[in-house]
């Protein structure tokens, strides 16, 4: 019997990796086999799927992804890619290399355990989650008991190709906050060369818990970043998510956030700075399943060269979710005539007493503002950067931790000063 191919060279390489690896993967075999069967049947998600209308995985379909060599590989060069203000954070840190924990580089907090010691795998038919379920070897499991303030935690993911060959990492992160628990998670993804980073997050917040989750996706511009994030917020809980995309050739973060208890709050703010031929997709579904919930989404894109930004944001309000307050705003700055933004807001409202608004703007850098700066002696390139930063700062300034704001500002300057692909 021949192994199923899943259609593309990439899918085939994942399935053969599973065949070779499965006897050594931690945990029960059944959910992995089920995920493999589902992934083999579906293959990589194609544009026929509504959720993938604006993002094609064709650029990675022909690549064969290899097993990374990550447990002993030197990491100094990759760690040097992490913005200095983040490394200076006085916080415990988890460093993953190619999807596996590097204990030698980490100082975990006591609420951490490794996914590999007791894998919890649920059935989720979405192709990228199934791919992760099939191959996840490790990840951060963060269990905060009721009332505990976990402070700040740095979650760093390092990745690289292997002697020019693409590699793939599928970490599985599980975060559970007990009643009233708090955590500020700062996640940073960097790397070099071509690889796939396909993380899955399972996040559940009990009543009145609060998680701040800042994601800095600063992957290699030859790499692929495909994140699937599921959030469930209980009564009065807050998920305060902020994603910043500056890296990867093709990046996508799909977040499905459910306001499961009354008075839950979800923030899914995001910003991206894309240049050259980068493609960045922010896809979100916010499900208001309980009354008195509030969700907020401010998304800002700065798109240069031939870059393409996608924002697909869907807000669903269930019949019983009265007094829901939903706000969504998508703003794009196009720096070149070849840059492109696709925006798809969707509201699906089954309750009658709700307040939901959404809006979108698309513009260019303001010629009068540029001239004003240049007339004061500021060189054109610096003037453009100042205006771009001002546009992004509007999104960034809501972040509480100054070190986190400095981290993002550092990345903006860094990315803007290097030549685009």
């Amino acid at each position: 019997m021949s192994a199923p191919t899943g259609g593309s060279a990439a899918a085939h390489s994942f399935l053969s990796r599973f065949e070779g690896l499965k006897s050594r993967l931690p945990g029960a075999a059944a959910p992995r086999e089920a995920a493999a069967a589902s992934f083999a049947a579906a293959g990589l998600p194609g544009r026929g799927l509504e959720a993938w209308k604006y993002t094609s995985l064709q650029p990675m379909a022909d690549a064969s992804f290899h097993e990374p060599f990550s447990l002993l590989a030197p990491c100094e060069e990759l760690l040097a890619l992490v913005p200095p203000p983040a490394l200076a954070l006085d916080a415990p840190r988890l460093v993953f290399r190619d999807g596996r924990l590097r204990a030698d580089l980490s100082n975990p907090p006591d609420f951490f355990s490794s996914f590999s010691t007791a894998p919890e795998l649920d059935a989720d038919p979405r192709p990228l989650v199934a791919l992760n379920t099939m191959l996840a070897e490790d990840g951060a499991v963060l269990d905060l008991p009721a009332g505990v303030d976990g402070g700040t935690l740095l979650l760093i993911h390092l990745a690289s190709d292997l002697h020019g060959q693409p590699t793939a990492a599928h970490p599985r992160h599980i975060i559970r906050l007990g009643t009233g628990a708090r955590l500020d998670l700062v996640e940073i993804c960097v790397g070099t060369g071509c690889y796939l980073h396909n993380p899955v997050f399972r996040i559940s917040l009990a009543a009145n818990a609060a998680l701040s989750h800042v994601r800095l996706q600063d992957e290699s511009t030859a790499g692929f970043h495909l994140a699937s994030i599921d959030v469930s917020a209980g009564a009065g809980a807050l998920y305060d998510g902020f994603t910043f995309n500056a890296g990867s050739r093709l990046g996508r973060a799909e977040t499905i956030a459910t306001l499961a208890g009354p008075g839950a709050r979800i923030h899914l703010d995001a910003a991206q700075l894309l240049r050259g031929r980068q493609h960045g997709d922010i896809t979100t579904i916010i499900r208001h399943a309980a009354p008195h919930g509030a969700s907020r989404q401010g998304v800002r894109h700065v798109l240069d060269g031939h870059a393409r930004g996608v924002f697909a944001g869907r807000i669903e309000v269930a019949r019983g979710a009265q007094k829901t307050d939903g706000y969504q705003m998508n703003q794009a700055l196009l720096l070149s005539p070849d840059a492109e933004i696709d925006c798809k807001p969707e509201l699906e409202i089954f309750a009658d007493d709700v307040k939901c608004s959404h809006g979108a703007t698309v513009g260019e850098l303001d010629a009068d503002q540029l001239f004003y700066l240049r007339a004061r002696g500021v060189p054109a390139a610096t003037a453009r950067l100042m205006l771009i930063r001002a546009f992004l700062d509007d999104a960034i300034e809501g972040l509480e931790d100054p070190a986190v704001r400095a981290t993002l500002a550092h990345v903006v300057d860094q990315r803007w000063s290097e030549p685009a692909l």
Partner: protein
Amino acid sequence: MSTLRIEGLHARIGDTEILHGIDLVVPAGEVHAIMGPNGSGKSTLSYVLSGRDGYEVTAGRALLGEQDLLAMEPEARAAAGLFLAFQYPVELPGVGNANFLRTALNAVRRARGEEELDAVRFLKLARAAMKSLAMADDMLKRQVNVGFSGGEKKRNEVLQMAILQPSLAILDETDSGLDIDALKIVADGVNALRGPQFSALVITHYQRLLDYIVPDRVHVLANGRIIRSGGPELAAELEAHGYAQIVAEAA
């Protein structure tokens, strides 16, 4: 030395010629006023000299000292010593005034081969300049011109001028919208720079400003041409008789 020399300058916006041949010399150390009715081309002249997009120079030239202004990028003109106080200062949401001023100053200093100022030295300089312009310290923390009153915007222009120390300043109706106290402060700001290394082109509608910044020469611009030039008394004549008579005489 930084004499401004404008010769036979014709400029158009799209298909419409606005400046029909301007000849003007402002020697170093002198302050000249340009007066004229609305729509005569005063702002157009200031924008052409400072390098704003959208204007096509079809004939003539403009030199600052030996430098061919019209061939330079706007930022190079600023570095060469040109400063335009805008008739309508531009708001820069998200850009802090202190960051803006320091970036501008250091860009200009770098281009002039001078060393850059660190934050401490810059703040000292900025605070001193603000004090002499009777500006509140919190102005530095605000976003550039955002939520500023008309008078605050104009004062912010003069602050930028005081900090950048140009050799040629063009003030485009910096007096409009100012009450008499603010007008005096602005005039003091300009007069403080006066000296052999500084010249100015003061564009104004009213004689009032010229009571405080006494010009060496006054020029009347109408329909894209300088139709009369004279001493400070010309401003008083215009104030008394209006532009209609002079424009009619010139036609």
